């Protein structure tokens, strides 16, 4: 694999065409879908941060008088079987999704980076052992592994993050390993070696920064699948426990029985999940187009 010159790729994407705000405007014009994705992501992050301000009701407050109320001026997206405001729960649910998404991507990414660097730089038996571990982790579908892990660890926010992070490790480790193998042979690493730089310093100061671009591309893609997996786990009742308003759990509570009577309980949380994931996917796609020319169509 040949190393990619990211400066050239960024310039081709329009990053260096102009300066200041016009630069971003120019890039946004060239990558419309990616910009839409970024806007969606920003909206979700803002919703999560300012959930307390935006939400009109306490997402956990039970109000049996107004149970299963249809969407109205008071309850924008209706209420659930316990009379909890769906809009407020979705806004607060953004926190859970974001926490799990970012948490598991960061955790899985960090473990993957360490394994990938060690495996690619040290080679030999370290590589052999890590490769077998990666093989093992890759032999199970993401959801199956995450399901067994949450079952083993017990349902809690931290455990769901861990359960989703571990299945994300292999792809990060593989990308970092492949990049490290290619970078290891380049003159600048040889030079660093020649002046007696420690291996740790070479790996973390010189090799790691050069693998950041593919890492960011991969992490964005994984953010989407982490959010989806959390929703699936919670939907199955094995993810985030009550009373946290997780989008997946909102759908599991409402599932088939409310399909007839309270469709808003099915429609809105699903839109929230889909939009959040769609946004990250759009943004991730644009990033990949810019940073990974091998994949460019």
């Amino acid at each position: 694999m040949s190393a990619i010159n990211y400066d050239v790729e960024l310039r081709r994407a329009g990053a260096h065409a102009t300066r200041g705000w016009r630069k971003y405007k120019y890039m946004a014009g060239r990558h419309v879908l990616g910009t839409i994705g970024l806007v969606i992501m920003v909206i979700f992050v803002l919703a999560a941060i300012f959930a307390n301000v935006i939400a009109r009701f306490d997402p956990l407050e039970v109000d049996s008088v107004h149970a299963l109320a249809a969407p109205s001026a008071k309850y924008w997206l209706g209420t659930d079987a316990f009379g909890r405001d769906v809009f407020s729960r979705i806004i607060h649910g953004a926190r859970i999704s974001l926490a799990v998404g970012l948490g598991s991507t960061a955790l899985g990414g960090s473990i993957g980076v360490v394994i990938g660097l060690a495996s690619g730089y040290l080679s030999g038996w370290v590589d052999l052992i890590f490769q077998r571990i990666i093989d093992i982790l890759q032999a199970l579908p993401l959801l199956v592994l995450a399901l067994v892990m949450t079952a083993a660890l017990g349902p809690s926010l931290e455990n769901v993050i861990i359960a989703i992070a571990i299945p994300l490790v292999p792809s990060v480790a593989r990308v970092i390993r492949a990049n490290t193998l290619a970078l290891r042979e380049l003159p600048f690493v040889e030079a660093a070696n020649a002046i007696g730089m420690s291996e740790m310093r070479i790996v973390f100061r010189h090799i790691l920064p050069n693998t950041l671009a593919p890492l960011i591309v991969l992490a964005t893609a994984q953010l989407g699948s982490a959010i989806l997996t959390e929703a699936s786990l919670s939907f199955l009742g094995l993810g985030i426990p009550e009373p946290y308003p997780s989008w997946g759990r909102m759908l599991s509570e409402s599932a088939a029985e409310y399909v007839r009577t309270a469709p808003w309980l099915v429609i809105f949380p699903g839109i929230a999940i889909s939009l959040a994931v769609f946004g990250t996917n759009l943004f991730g796609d644009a990033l990949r187009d810019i940073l990974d020319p091998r994949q460019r169509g």
Partner: protein
Amino acid sequence: MLGYIVRRLALMLITLFGISVIIFVLLRIVPGNIVDILFDAAGFVDPSDKANLERELGLDQSIVVQYLHWIGGLLHGDLGYSYVSEKPALDEILPRIPITARLAGLALMFSAAIGIPLGVLSALKQGSRLDYILRAVSLSGLSLPSFWLGLLILMASVSMFGTMPIYTPNPQSFGQAVAIYCVPAMAVGFRSAALVMRITRSSMLEVLRQDYIRTARAKGASETTVNFRHALKNGMLPIITVLGIEAAFLVGGLIVTETVFNIPGIARFLVEAIRWRDYPIVQNLVMFCALIVVLANFTVDMLYAVFDPRIRYND
């Protein structure tokens, strides 16, 4: 080639062994086993009864002994007994496999039938408005949770027909069979179709840039011949890979889809068994999933050599 196959098979065995150890340990670090759950539900019970039951299920032995017992049985085709139904695990698992296999097969057919043509179209019209729309649709396919798609389909069917497709083991009519299998298959296959479409598009774009495509055009081959006989045929490899991997990984998507549509396949069975801490079922089902994935990977690699004569596994 033979040496490569032997080495691959050896690695497959190592992977399966690793999975078996990890799953076995994971399931047993959970505080509380099935006996605790059963007895908690029953209220106060004589502790000696509890100890008896634990002995009967072999839960009083050390974890290593339990593991060896399981693997030993597995090699003889004895998967142990379900804690919940007390029937042999094999008898519980086997009848559910065809249901899931049918769904997965239909979903794959659906994803290939939709994904490949649309991917080709998207590549041929690269940069056009149609390409943009198709790309957005395929991205949305990767973004919609399949259980939500399933719920939406149920909702649509309720509002249109006043009823929803309910699984029966013996469908009365062809239409009913279509409803109970094809509808869930489409719900789960939408994602795979989107994936296949993206891979087809990028693979086609890659191939269309090659010199031999220009040569084919230059010698006067028609557009159809160039696009399908030269381009698509050579671009099939990544598509086959994705279809092969998806075939194995569909179990993940089917877990939620079978739950939504109430279909008694192995994917939903896995969730039920996890809820009940029914270890013999969970560990055997997970091993089964891993076996399918490992075999699918192997088959895809072998197909590579068939489809691309330049690939020779000889070292």
